[in-house]
């Protein structure tokens, strides 16, 4: 998927907006369609395979950047809460509870309704999805790490707090955060797909996995390949990221002794 996303323009047989109106709604070539379109064409005669590859690219960008934003923002707040404790901690955790109690989709609808839609804003918005989990997790693991001997010893050695957090505590808690990252990534992909499906995400002629699903809605009954292609890709991507997360967790845990 990553390779597909990175080299989309080289791999895709056609441009994502290229139309061939003469060959509209052609079934996949293995199901008796035109030989040039491996996964068939859509209602505007665009090559499904090419659009799919571009869609993966967009969805990946949104999901990876968005998750990274959420992880960095949330973890930073979690570190701050664990460092200052007291009022700062209560404020951050209060914010976390508010965010956790609010259905994110409603929040996203509100933001898009107010600020309109463009790709950068959309990425930031998706980034806020799940930050509260990172904040909560980071706070917990850092509070725990601070009671460990090495953190206490680093303080006693006279190291400044920033160094203690970045050099001593961060590498020790990173595994937990990385695992959370791989849990969040598939959800972010699904969120992007969901928002795009509602028409609030990526706007045509750009495409994304969710948008492709949405576009295919009127044609489900007759032209099965239109929803099937992006659906299968969403399924496979989220599954593989989850499996990657599992493997990563096993690897990181056993590396310690």
């Amino acid at each position, binding site marked *: 998927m990553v390779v597909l996303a990175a080299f989309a323009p080289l791999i895709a047989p056609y441009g994502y907006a290229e139309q061939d109106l003469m060959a509209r709604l052609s079934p996949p070539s293995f199901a008796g369609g035109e030989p040039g379109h491996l996964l068939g064409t859509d209602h505007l005669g665009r090559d499904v395979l090419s659009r799919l590859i571009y869609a993966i690219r967009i969805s990946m960008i949104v999901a990876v950047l968005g998750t990274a934003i959420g992880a960095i923002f949330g973890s930073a707040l979690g570190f701050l809460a664990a460092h200052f404790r007291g009022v700062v901690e209560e404020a951050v955790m209060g914010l976390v509870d508010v965010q956790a109690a609010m259905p994110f989709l409603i929040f996203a609808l509100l933001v898009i309704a107010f600020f309109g839609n463009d790709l950068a804003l959309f990425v930031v918005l998706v980034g806020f999805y799940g930050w509260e989990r990172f904040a909560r997790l980071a706070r917990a693991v850092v509070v725990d790490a601070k009671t460990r001997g090495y953190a206490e010893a680093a303080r*006693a*050695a006279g190291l400044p707090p920033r*160094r203690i957090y970045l*050099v*001593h505590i961060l*590498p020790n808690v990173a595994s937990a955060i990385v695992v959370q990252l791989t849990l969040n990534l598939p959800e972010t992909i699904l969120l992007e797909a969901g928002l795009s499906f509602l028409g609030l995400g990526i706007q045509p002629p750009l495409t994304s996995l969710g948008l492709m699903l949405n576009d295919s809605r009127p044609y489900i009954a007759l032209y099965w390949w239109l929803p099937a292609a992006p659906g299968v890709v969403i399924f496979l991507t989220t599954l593989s990221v989850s499996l990657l997360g599992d493997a990563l967790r096993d690897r990181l845990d056993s590396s310690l002794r």
Partner: protein
Amino acid sequence: MSRHYRARGGRGTVHAVDGVDLSVVHGETLGVVGESGCGKSTLGRVLSGLEPPTAGQIRYGGAPLPGKDGAAFRASRRRIQYVFQHPLLALNPRLTVGAHVAEMARVHGLAASATEARRKAAAALADVGLDAALGARYPHQLSGGQRQRALLARSLVIDPEFVVLDEPTSALDLSVQAQVIELIGRLKARRALTVVIISHDLRVVRVLSDRIAVMYLGVVVEIGAADQVYHAPAHPYAVALIAALLRLDPDAPRVPPLEGEPASGGDIPPGCRFHPRCPRAAAPGRALEPPLAPLPDGRQVACHAVAADTARAPWPPLSAGAAA
């Protein structure tokens, strides 16, 4: 030059350290012994400034130690180092031991570049008898003795003036203990270090110390020259502590082991805090806490019975096993 440290106080209602007044002179090694929970580690932490005393103060070279954290605290770490009890816990599992040592040199401004810091670290590791190649290892890849050495190197790379060693040998095998003790002796002789060694093992303390302080339930009950305290303890608790050591001496006087358990710092008996277990306990000990009073030979002992002995016969103090 003389330096004074004063610690007085305890933490919360648990009187881990309860009114200790002692000074450590520049260049000397003071050993602190006592059973688990007597407050010797707390004393060490307060002495080195890691924890503020609840009451009283610690003066270092005439000036009070800075309070917790902050830039002044970090600057004071350049001169005062505390070496933790369990090397495996005190070292970061994700950093190589060399990185630990180099980091110290760098943070305390002793190395202008990373290369220089690495060179200093290699020198410090060599100083404690660790091969340069071991610097690239992670703590869990080292043996107990190597870890203890690495921890020492981490503190000694910045050439501190005053070091508190908390149980430097308790995590080690007997044979490795001897090596580490010998190493500490060599290091402090070469660097004119002022050292406080905390241990429950009297033999460790005796080999390395100029003076020994015996603690019981948060107070110092006896303090004096190492040989005096070790060979002719005066306080009944010190007598029992030393008699409990295995000695290959059939003529050594037999001292019955102590009865009962030590009370906890949260429930200190009134009067002399040792009286429930003391073989010489008498009326005054139940009512009054004995002060740390000097004996003619220079040491100080907190015991009514010993004070009475001294009043009767100024020298030698009557105590079991008096054969210095």
